[in-house]
């Protein structure tokens, strides 16, 4: 019997049956285990950034709209910079902050972004391109985006003062930061940054322990107290750093601070538990405290806001299909759905015209116009953020972004500043 069988299995038969078998396997969907076959069809992006723009809903929506799959690599602001410099091949697209540009651009590890490939480039808000909001020039102390936006060429390591075709980052998201307070525990109006060091809040204040951002909040406080007026808070001299740190060191020794925080969640816990009643804080942290049913206000202050801004860049090694996919992703990002998603969390989208089309008019009125909510305001995940009749802290886009006093910064004396900051923590 075996003899008969072996005769029957000719080469031709063999091939036929193998093909049939492979076809059957492929047809029944068993082949998904082979990434090589699969990946050729599905474009995939490795996306390095802080968690701000990352989420399940955007990931799903992106795949629906464009067929692009995104793999998030989430790190802290400082670690994103470190990764760009030390592992430039570990990502396809990066979401970084403008204040990191003075460090990153001279290193040549990022590619100049071609604005001609960005459909909505003409609609990017003027806060980025001209440093203006509603025609009014806003504060530009620190590393304001307009100072580090344009490059002299695609592979240039120098910034250009005048607009060019190539930019460092394609802007995506930005916001104006201020102090967060617990109105139920403070029980009186707060209107100035100086309150952070008010002895009334001894042992109940906090500031963030990220030197490059903390120093800016500290400078806002020092200036508000009338101790010193900085020519440029975002680029202090050694003497100015000494002065700022001295005031904060004395406050720290006197027990002004309950704790310092360096992680978003820590700031939420400090505030929600009532350990701290006034502190530097980020907008989504306020949202997180509020969604626990605890009153928390992102208090507008008369000296203005400290702003930050982020955008997309490609590693200098990017080319070909991978680069095209990255540009396609950026164009999707600015096309509206994502802008609405960001606006609904209290951030601002870099292209507002498309975001508006993706928001209900009552949402737009609440988040952007500073009007009282005509119905309950929900977060993108469906949690209630504000009840009918409430107004957004700080009011409209023009009111908030128009009152920006300074931007997150990298100073010339950065090395010295970090050392002095460490000394304050150690004191």
């Amino acid at each position: 019997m075996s003899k008969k069988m072996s005769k029957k299995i000719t080469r031709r038969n063999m091939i036929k049956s193998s093909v049939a078998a492979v076809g059957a396997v492929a047809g029944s969907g068993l082949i998904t285990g082979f990434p090589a076959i699969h990946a050729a069809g599905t474009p995939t992006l490795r996306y390095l950034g802080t968690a701000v723009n990352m989420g399940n809903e955007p990931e799903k929506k992106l795949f629906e709209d464009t067929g692009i799959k995104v793999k998030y690599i989430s790190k802290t602001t400082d670690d994103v910079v470190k990764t760009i410099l030390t592992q430039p091949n570990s990502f396809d697209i990066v979401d970084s902050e403008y204040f990191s540009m003075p460090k990153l651009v001279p290193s040549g590890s990022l590619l100049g972004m071609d604005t001609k490939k960005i459909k909505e480039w003409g609609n990017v808000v003027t806060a980025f391109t001209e440093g203006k909001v509603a025609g009014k020039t806003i504060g530009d102390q620190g590393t304001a985006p307009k100072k580090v936006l344009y490059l002299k060429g695609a592979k240039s390591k120098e910034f250009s003062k005048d607009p060019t075709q190539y930019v460092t980052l394609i802007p995506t998201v930005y916001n104006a930061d201020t102090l967060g307070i617990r109105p139920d525990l403070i029980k009186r109006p707060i209107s100035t940054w100086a309150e952070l060091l008010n002895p009334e809040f001894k042992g109940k204040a906090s500031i963030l322990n990220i030197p490059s951002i903390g120093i800016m909040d500290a400078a806002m406080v020092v200036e508000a107290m009338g101790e010193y007026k900085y020519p440029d808070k975002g680029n202090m001299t050694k003497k100015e750093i000494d002065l700022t740190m001295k005031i904060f060191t004395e406050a720290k020794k006197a027990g002004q601070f309950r704790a310092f925080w360096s992680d978003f969640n820590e700031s939420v816990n400090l505030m929600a538990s009532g350990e701290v009643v006034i502190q530097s804080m980020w907008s989504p942290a306020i949202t997180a405290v509020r969604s626990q049913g605890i009153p928390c206000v992102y208090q507008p202050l008369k000296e203005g806001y400290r702003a930050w801004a982020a955008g997309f860049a490609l590693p200098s090694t990017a080319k070909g299909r991978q680069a095209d996919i990255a540009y396609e992703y950026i164009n999707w990002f600015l096309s509206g759905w994502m802008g609405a998603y960001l606006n609904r969390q209290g951030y601002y989208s870099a292209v507002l015209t498309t975001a508006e089309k993706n928001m209900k008019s009552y949402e737009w009125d609440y988040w952007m116009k500073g009007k009282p909510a005509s119905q309950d305001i929900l977060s993108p995940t469906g949690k209630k953020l504000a009840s009918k009749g409430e107004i957004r802290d700080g009011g409209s886009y023009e009111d908030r972004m128009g009152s920006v006093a300074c931007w997150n910064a990298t100073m010339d004396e950065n090395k010295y500043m970090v050392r002095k900051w460490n000394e304050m923590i150690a004191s």
Partner: protein
Amino acid sequence: MNNRKSFFLAAPFYLVFLCFFLIPLILTVIVSFWDYNEYSIIPDFIFENYAYIFNNCFDYSKDVCVTFKTYLSTFYFCFLSWLFTLLAGFTIAYFLAFHVKSLGLQITLFLICTIPFWTSNVIRMVSWIPLLGRNGLFNSFLLSTGIIDDPQEWFLYSHFSVVLAFIHLYTLFMIVPIFNSMLRIDKSIIEAAYDAGANGFQILINIIIPLCKPGIVIGSIFVITVVMGDFITIGIMGGQQLASIGKIIQVEMSYLQLPAAAANAVILLIITIFIIWIMTKFIDIRKEL
């Protein structure tokens, strides 16, 4: 011949030790003499990184410098954590080894000691916050019983909370080696001591403690090296207001000031090795193992 054979047997370990310990260590020492700017480290041979660490340290007209202050605070945490983990660890090990008679119960109780290690150390630390906070369980209990009139703030974000967390985290590191030493003590020695009229205290001082020395030293090395390099516990439990060398190194690394961080790491290493060297003067661990 025999020598060569044992060399080959030990070779894989030598290799691992070389690749993952010695070479990185040598690189760290080399980089500590390099220069740096915002985005890169520059090969050089400068002492600036070390000079900065000891800047103003030998100027006695001024306050204690940051580096000395930071080390003093680290030593302080080290001493207190060592003392309390030793007392707690020794007591628990003593109870397990000499008072629990059945082996099954011994193993069960020992495993119970390891339960906290089933979660990460950060979670173990964070779980103290609702207990110790201003509106935490401790304060509400003390307030409701009338023992205190105002919430106590020193429970959390203080030296107290840091030491408490260290004890919670690292007592097991003391229990294990001490328990191990105690199990090796020949019971007949203790019986002989009883027969000769020694009381429990004399047995503890003259027999058990001397024979547990290797376990105590090994446990102490674990605790001291971990506490010397720690920055997470001091950060979370101290509200990031207390200095630690580890935190300084971490901040420097996150700003890519790698040579400065390397210099700090080298000094920390030298000091830690020195402490361990002193401890091994008290007992020859190799001989005792």
